[in-house]
């Protein structure tokens, strides 16, 4: 019986029913909910499948166009990362300013006596937002870090690092927080890991490892680490300055 329904649906949609047949068909649509529902599905299937199969070729062509445009306008990861990360945090200009401030402070403060950590612990501002997002955790982390609230910053950075497990920059700043909070066990593990890698932050991590040694008053170890910082590194001048004081 159902089979007859479907033949009827097909005939109705193809406008092959007689006037009287149409009237009784439409009456059934109005009175029989099940009949009506099946007709609606049948009709929707017809439209959907017809459109899908008719446009298969056109869809392929459209996808071709979109793929081309996609690769043209959406740049792959590595190129974005290089630009975004290195420039955002260690743009030369910014770094030079920070470095010269550190040098000046050094010059005025440690003409006498042993150098101390606070004289060199002039951290670059955390600027993760430059990457173009509005993550609340990022903003909180950044605000906390830049206002020297290292406990809060550490919490937020830990949240961030759970979802960005390979983000060296976040790791580095976590290390700095631990260092500020005197949790050397944690900070040194982080600095060691980054400085032995080949990320853009390797030398910075070495510099911080040296600062950690300085803060722990392990001057020989500090000297040793400082000597590993190559001349090409942005931290080289600072490192040399500290070495002279030790």
């Amino acid at each position, binding site marked *: 019986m159902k089979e007859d329904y*479907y033949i009827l649906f097909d005939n109705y949609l193809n406008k092959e029913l007689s006037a009287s047949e149409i009237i009784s068909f439409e009456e059934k649509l109005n009175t029989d909910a099940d009949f009506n529902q099946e007709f609606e*599905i049948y009709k929707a299937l017809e439209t959907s*499948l017809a459109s899908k199969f008719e446009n298969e070729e056109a869809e392929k062509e459209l996808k071709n166009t979109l793929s081309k445009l996609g690769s*043209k306008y959406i740049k792959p*990861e590595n190129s974005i990362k290089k630009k975004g990360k290195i420039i955002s945090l260690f743009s030369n200009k910014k770094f030079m300013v920070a470095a010269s401030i550190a040098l000046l402070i050094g010059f005025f403060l440690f003409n006498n006596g042993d150098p101390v950590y606070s004289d060199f612990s002039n951290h670059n501002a955390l600027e993760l937002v430059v990457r173009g997002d509005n993550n609340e955790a990022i903003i909180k982390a950044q605000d906390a870090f830049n206002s020297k609230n290292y406990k809060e910053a550490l919490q937020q950075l830990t*949240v961030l690092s759970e979802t960005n497990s390979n983000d060296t920059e976040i790791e580095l700043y976590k290390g700095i927080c631990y260092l500020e909070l005197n949790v050397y066990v944690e900070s040194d593990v982080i600095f060691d890991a980054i400085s032995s890698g080949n990320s853009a932050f390797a030398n910075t991590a070495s510099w911080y490892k040296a600062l950690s040694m300085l803060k722990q008053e392990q001057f020989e170890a500090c000297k040793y680490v400082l000597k590993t910082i190559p001349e090409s590194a942005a931290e080289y001048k600072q490192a040399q300055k500290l070495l002279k004081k030790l």
Partner: protein
Amino acid sequence: MIQKPHEDHIYIEALLKNDSRVLSKIYEKFSHKIVSYVRNNNGNSDDAQDIIQETLVTIYHQAKEKNFILTCPFDAYFYLLCKRRWLNELKKRGNNRVTILDDTTSITEEQEQQVEETEIFEKQSQLFESKFKELGAKCQELLKTTFKIKSMEKVAEILGVTYGYARKKKSQCMGKLTQLVKDSNEFHQLKAY
């Protein structure tokens, strides 16, 4: 009801016409935001490219089949669609750790409605397609041929059967498909809209 198209409807027309000049504007103007969103939420730029393309293809089909008219700005409509598609994708991958909060882009009721329309359209198409694949090979072939070649006489000729038999078979296969759709859970969820 006659809907007045928004001026951004040009993008929908560009999809229908495969007009790469206008389509390139979509990528130029709107892709950046979506790429950032995906990258900040456990995705990479390849993911973003897929999300954008799938969304555009869906809009294309909706426009083709349902004469979809865009009545709101394309930007927010498109961004929201891509965003929700990416969140769905993350769910599929079993990754529920989405850190990003909803950004403050304000959405009007009309935009929300258009987004939902597109999403329901897609869900329905996907349901139909998956049920179609559950049909036997013979039914699939017959229906495919029927929809590609409009004339049932020709279909009968190609398949080497009589016209009457082809007609009867076609409605039988369609009937089977109707039943499959009707009995599916997804259909009942869609009906709830």
